[in-house]
């Protein structure tokens, strides 16, 4: 039997997956199993499919995705911690015809940047906001996030997040339902919660992200907000497979998937 060479395999008819042209050659620095890489890929594919790469400006956060600009082949500005929505507002207001998106984690969007998040949504800026929620601070080494689940152990809640002490005294507070909160604001057009732990979830997530960009391109106002419930296997101290299982068992009951608001109308469940 003739030996099969690499050249025999690399043939157009054998192609099952192609990396988006809008992702650069730079290898991701994300931990294996992390959701960021998948979310990046989806965004790049969507921008490519929409053909807006030459008028897109991204805003990267502080957190694990701080260097997102290295991976996307579109113009990017790197924001201070929590300020990505303000940055996106600044750009969109002076360049209303550009496609502007922010990309943030839970600490960035829902703790230090809550003020910017709420007011950007409340003004109804015509932008797309991507929010990756894994319930923990990744880059700084696994501290409690506003979205950390009750009882979840982190570097700053080593005995588990305890909203109140047994005697009722306030302690770590409660998981912040920021996405529900934003859906209540009249300035948000489209609010959805997605995930990337399975192929089916990825497909749904891509549809949502595409819609969030299409809405921006077709309209003049209204924030398009996509939360992605994701994992942090490194700081959750689990294998990637276990982390995705844990996410489904523990995160999704608190942060259920699906659209919360469409075309400025709340979706009743």
């Amino acid at each position, binding site marked *: 039997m003739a030996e099969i060479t690499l050249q025999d395999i690399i043939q157009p008819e054998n192609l099952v997956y192609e990396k988006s042209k809008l992702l650069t050659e730079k290898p991701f620095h994300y931990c294996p199993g992390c959701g960021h890489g998948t979310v990046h890929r989806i965004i790049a594919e969507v921008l490519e499919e929409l053909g807006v*790469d030459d008028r897109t400006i991204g*805003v990267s956060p502080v957190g694990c995705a701080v260097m997102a600009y290295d991976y996307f082949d*579109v113009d990017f*500005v790197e924001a201070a911690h929590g300020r990505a929505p303000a940055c996106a507002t600044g750009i969109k207001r*002076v360049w209303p015809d550009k496609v502007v998106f922010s990309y943030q984690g839970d600490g960035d969007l829902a703790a230090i940047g809550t003020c910017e998040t709420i*007011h950007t949504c409340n003004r109804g800026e015509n932008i797309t906001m991507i929010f990756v929620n894994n319930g923990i601070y990744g880059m700084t080494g696994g501290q409690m996030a506003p979205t950390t689940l009750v009882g979840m152990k982190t570097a700053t809640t080593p005995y588990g997040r305890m909203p109140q002490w047994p005697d009722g005294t306030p302690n770590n507070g409660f998981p912040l339902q920021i996405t529900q909160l934003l859906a209540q604001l009249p300035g948000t057009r489209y609010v959805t919660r997605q995930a990337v732990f399975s192929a089916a979830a990825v497909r749904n997530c891509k549809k949502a992200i595409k819609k969030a960009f299409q809405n921006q391109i077709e309209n003049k106002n209204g924030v398009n907000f996509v939360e992605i419930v994701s994992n942090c296997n490194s700081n959750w101290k689990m294998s990637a497979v276990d982390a995705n299982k844990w996410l489904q068992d523990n995160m999704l009951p608190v942060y259920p998937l699906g659209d919360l608001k469409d075309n400025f109308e709340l979706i009743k469940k």
Partner: protein
Amino acid sequence: MGELKLMKGNEALAEAAIRCGADAYFGYPITPQSEVIEYLSEQNPYERTGMVVLQAESELAAINMVYAAGAAGKRVMTSSSSPGVCLKQEGLAYIAGAEVPCVFADVVRGGPGLGTIQPSQADYFQNTKGGGNGDYRNIVLAPASVQEMADFVPLGFELAFKYRMAVCILSDGAIGQMMEKVVLPEQKARLTEEEIKAKYPWALTGRKRGTQHRVITSLDLDSARMEEHNRHLQRKYDEVTKNEVRYEMIDCDDAEYVFVAYGSSARIAQKSVQLGRAEGLKVGLLRPITLWPYPTQAIRNLIDKGVKGFLSVELSCGQMIEDVLLACNGRAKAEHFGRVGGIIHTPEEVLEAMKKQIIGE
């Protein structure tokens, strides 16, 4: 010749922004500079020139809007007063690190903390020495009249884009709130997208297909590259220091003793010079217009010409005096005189301080 008007300093600053073709103002109200955003809102520049005016949710949000819109190549500005400028320091450090052009005004009030809403010059350190983190500088222009409030806006944008850095217009409650004659320039057109792309290839306008995408960031975890970036910034600041020092001298030709004062203090010290000259004292005034870069050489030249002493007159407990002392480097006497808490020194007490502290009996 433009249009002659009677305006508040804050209004002149706002009108000058519209007329020089600024693209956006992002701000947050604070006394004594709220007239800037009120005037802009009343003038509706969105209809006049397409300029965007947005009242942000905080000074933090406003400066970060400025940061990103400046990174996108637009002429953007903000303004605030002392405690608000503290909040903007985060964004200003990013602006310095990422080399984004912008103009911001600090209409200074007394501090520390909430302090007072009355005029002060106690933000000299905050603006000239850098209030944010890292080794950086902002160009600081100090208007001493309503006219200069208007003139320094287009000048500020020119310098900001020439050097890709922030330019501070360091004013105070007196200059911001007072009305004076001002001659306004003709309306200039805002730059078009094509002009911005041609003039500022670094600006984030959406990367052209087949070209490298652009990134505006202050982050680089590679130590060698970060060192080189810092060296590059310092070389740029050296260039600014070489080219952009501005100051005014009044009655300094034969002076033996010189007041050093900027902004509203300079106006008072100018009167002190007149009073002193009437008494036969050989006094003059050096008015720094750029507080960074500082007119260090001008002070040294005065010492070479025989000036024996300097009095730094400031509405603070003594901040600019440090730069005067550095310039003197022990070769001439220099001391500080100033009133604080919203009290403005009189020309008479300034002259008296010069006699007592510098000239001696």
